């Protein structure tokens, strides 16, 4: 077992982890943050996307022990003071989901894209979300939502 300290959504957690535990299962099973989904287990689908020190990563292929000392943001950490994050709000407004399974990862990938100033056009958004699969194939509304959110976050700055 290994002592690991993670800051998740602003809250510090000290955990004893098996070295082989994946970050996504640390979040889901240990911290009960089940918003982050596991789709493929092999980094193909992006459902497990979270931010580690501000960068989007696929948490199914990161060991929990590798995240020692890191700041992690999951889908649960986006809404503040009871109001949705602009990306969540835009997904709601545009009905940018069907079954919803890919949504947490899609939202986290979109947040990273916008925060890095890379959601500059429809083409850039499509390219920036290419690591996230929506098997309902609802990409059209997702892209519209991200464009909208990028505008809203730009105006808020």
């Amino acid at each position, binding site marked *: 077992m290994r002592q690991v300290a993670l800051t998740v959504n602003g809250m510090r957690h000290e955990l004893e982890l098996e070295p082989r535990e994946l970050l996504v299962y640390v979040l889901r099973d240990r911290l009960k943050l089940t918003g982050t989904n596991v789709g493929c287990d092999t*980094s193909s689908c992006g459902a497990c996307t979270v931010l580690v020190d501000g960068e*989007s990563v696929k948490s199914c292929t990161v*060991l929990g022990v590798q995240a*020692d000392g890191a700041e992690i943001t999951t889908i649960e950490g986006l809404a503040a003071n009871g109001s949705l994050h602009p990306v969540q709000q835009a997904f709601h407004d545009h009905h940018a989901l069907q079954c919803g399974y890919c949504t947490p990862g899609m939202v986290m990938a979109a947040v990273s894209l916008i925060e890095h100033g890379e959601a500059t056009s429809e083409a850039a958004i499509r390219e920036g979300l*290419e690591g996230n699969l929506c098997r309902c194939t609802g990409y059209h509304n997702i892209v519209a939502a991200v464009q909208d959110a990028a505008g809203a976050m730009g105006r808020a700055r």
Partner: protein
Amino acid sequence: MEVFRPSTLDEALRLRAEHPQARPIQGGTDVMVELTFGDARPEALLDLSELAELRGFAEEDGLLRLGAGLTYTEAMQTPLASRLPALAEASRTVGSPQIRNRGTIGGNLGTASPAGDALPPLLAERAEVELASARGTRTMPLAEFLLGVKRTALAPGELVTAVRVRPCEGPQTFAKVGQRNAMVIAICSLAVVVDAEAGEVRAAFGSSAVTARCVVVPLAEAAELPERVVEAASPIDDVRATAAYRRHALRVLAARTLERCLRT
């Protein structure tokens, strides 16, 4: 499974010598997938992601030293992207943003897949690999480091610590064919470097032989390049494409990238 997490290179090299069965890992974009699929069952991992010595890049007298921990995302950014544009282009085609944030140049070399996207641009730039062990440091040409499918010249106790490259003057570019844009292993890939000083054009290709391979033709005979690339390739039929398709695609990629470089 044990996971060693050294915080200095010296500690990493000591652990490497003491635990030869420990599999080196950086961002884990290759190793973790192997573990999850059950294709690899290492007794231990040697996580190199905390080593400051492997991060970023430095330049001295025109020689670039890319740390083994340099991520694809970092390779895509200026000023590195303007020194090694083909590597930056190749990095942009790797996986997806999440993979590019984790995956590293050193990891690509350590895995030594014939499909490694960083390998053709580095081969075409005649890059050298820096290898360290408790015994010391040595360098060797990347072309000699790559021995076969996922086989390298890494000696016991050694770790890949950096890639050294002296970017040549002249245009260069990279192209690849895959089943979709993101998250796929290349069906074939190719980097072209026009080395005006040496008076030659070098093309290195991936996914069409047991290792990524480099072909050199004199600048005056640049038109021969596509044919020379196809002659040097020995592709196979696999789940992604047939050998015949790969030969065809290599010829197209060589002609297209060459045109991009020479048309100005």
